[in-house]
């Protein structure tokens, strides 16, 4: 059994303008020790998917209106708020984009880590302190003893992100959700951080959902990748498969439109148009208006899941093999 099984997760925002279908039937599974990258542009539903998993969708506008989120076979969507509080931080931990805002500027690093460990593991005194120091040293934070007394403003950006990760990993969670963890970091610090995350994952077997818009990060860090567009996963598969044989026209277009550090591209192939308005989604494939390969039926019917290989699935009418699914 997979560690995490997400099945037709649907989260909508009810606004004065109408209903925003932020997450519209997202399904995937994740095994222990595995890294799944959720990649997509802003508004594609990556972050709302993550918030839905831990039931932190901003209410009352946002509501999870359907689907299941099974962690070790237990549906998180049916748990009481008190039960969810025990899941968050203990079984599922999160690292957010900007450690400046996710850490509390008024509390020392030590206090912030202790809070989590005390709450979930009930440790006190010396045992608590030992566990907190362990958490810091696992993220290779030098001079951990000294750091306990520090406030976030005394740390560099990279060090702050390590501290938030130390907090996240302090109770040995089964699943770590990292939402754009390196977007606010410099490239050399980003590389350090991602290496460290990999080491921690190898040591603890934690499963990671890595949210990013950067295909370089996906290529370097993810075992599998799910490409999101307009609230849906349009393609999912092993990272190598998806990069070598991208099946969805959106994935293909994204991979062609990016500049690469490895070689100078003569000209980038643009994706025309804009991402769709989530309130007025077209009835067919939401990428159809921008798709160079669209067919008439793309504009009327949402494409079925086309299986392209072991765990490689794309939702597209023109994907190779879609013929078999038609009819």
């Amino acid at each position: 059994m997979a560690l995490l099984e997400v099945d037709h997760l649907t989260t909508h925002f009810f606004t004065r303008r109408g209903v925003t279908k932020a997450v519209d039937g997202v399904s995937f599974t994740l095994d222990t020790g595995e890294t799944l990258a959720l990649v997509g542009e802003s508004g594609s539903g990556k972050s709302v998917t993550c918030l839905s998993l831990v039931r932190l969708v901003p209410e009352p506008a946002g509501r999870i209106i359907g689907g299941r989120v099974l962690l070790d076979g237990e549906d998180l969507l049916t748990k009481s708020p008190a039960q969810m509080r025990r899941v968050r931080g203990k079984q599922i931990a999160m690292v957010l984009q900007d450690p400046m805002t996710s850490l509390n500027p008024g509390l020392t690093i030590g206090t912030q880590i202790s809070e989590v460990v005390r709450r979930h593991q009930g440790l006190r005194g010396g045992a608590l302190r030992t566990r907190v120091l362990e958490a810091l040293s696992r993220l290779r934070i030098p001079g951990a003893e000294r750091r306990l007394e520090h406030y976030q403003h005394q740390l560099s950006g990279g060090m702050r992100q390590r501290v938030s990760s130390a907090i996240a990993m302090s109770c040995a969670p089964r699943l770590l959700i990292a939402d754009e963890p390196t977007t606010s970091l410099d490239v050399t610090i980003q590389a350090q951080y991602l290496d460290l995350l990999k080491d921690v994952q190898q040591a603890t077997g934690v499963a990671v959902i890595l949210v990013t818009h950067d295909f370089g990060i996906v290529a370097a860090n993810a075992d599998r990748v799910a490409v999101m567009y307009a609230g849906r996963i349009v393609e999912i598969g092993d990272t190598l498969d998806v990069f070598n044989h991208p099946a969805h026209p959106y994935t293909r277009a994204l991979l062609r439109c990016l500049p690469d550090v490895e070689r100078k591209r003569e000209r980038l192939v643009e994706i025309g148009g804009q991402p769709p308005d989530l309130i007025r989604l077209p009835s067919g494939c939401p990428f159809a208006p921008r798709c160079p390969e669209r067919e008439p039926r793309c504009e009327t019917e949402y494409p079925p899941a086309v299986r392209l290989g072991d765990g490689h699935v794309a939702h597209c009418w023109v994907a190779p093999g879609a013929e078999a699914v038609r009819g």
Partner: protein
Amino acid sequence: MMLKGVGLKKYFPARRGFTLGRPPGWVRALDGVSVQVAEGETLGIVGESGSGKTTLARLFLLLERPTAGSLLFDGTPIETFGSRDLARYRRAVQAVFQDPYSSLDPRMRVEHIVAEPLPRDGGASRAVRRERVLEVLQLVGLRRDSASLYPHEFSGGQRQRIAIARALATTPKFIVLDEPVSALDVSIRAQILNLLKDLQERLGLAYLMISHDLAAARYLATRLAVMYAGQLVETGDCDAVYTEPLHPYTQALLSAALPLHPSARRRRIVLTGEVPNPMNPPAGCRFHPRCPQAMPQCRNDEPAWKEVKPGRFTACHLY
């Protein structure tokens, strides 16, 4: 035409709280940088936060005055410019900033945003100004009727087009691009990068492109300058620097950039430690505390800026 900075320094006073008199120290944001941009080329300036790239851009835009060093426009130091020459400079050197959500005034119509840098002399100029606005809007791929709309009616990519139109209005020769695509979505970046490339070819523009995005810099730049802790560490032809970086910092920086394919994993040079404090940079080479190839002399002697190969300059004791 040539835009040149010679020995540029910019120190900011470092004060804590409310203090009078002499500041307790100086933040050396830029510490002796000489660069030049020739007509029609793109100089990419890459480096991490705090390396001084944005300060350099601000000096060229006359938004800051250098503490030392000078700017030369067509060989003439701009300190000698009167108001008329300065106005000419400002028309010739324009800017596009990172975030098109904050660089466009939300209460102005596009027409007025784009017309703002245009001179307002003469009575007949109103129609001329409007004509110019429509012309540049078309150049950047926006419809003529965009002129009467407000910024909120546009997406991020279109807003960046408006910002580019505004920069083009005065028919400049140089445009400072400060992270021009960092705030945009990936599918929109290609549109803007291609537009910038096309405009350069059509109008013979020169760009000074500030970027921390090494892939975007590689796409647009013809020459590259790498900065670290307020100084240049290396300059050269863009492709040559990417394929054979000379300075150990450039090597580490480029090795940390992630290629776009999972099988293209490369050997990463992991840097330890952090960027030095700009108030008290290390003696000798500023990179020596983190340099994997540091030698004893790096600790005391500041390496000279020299041409190591034709067109390739660096400041490093290895060469």
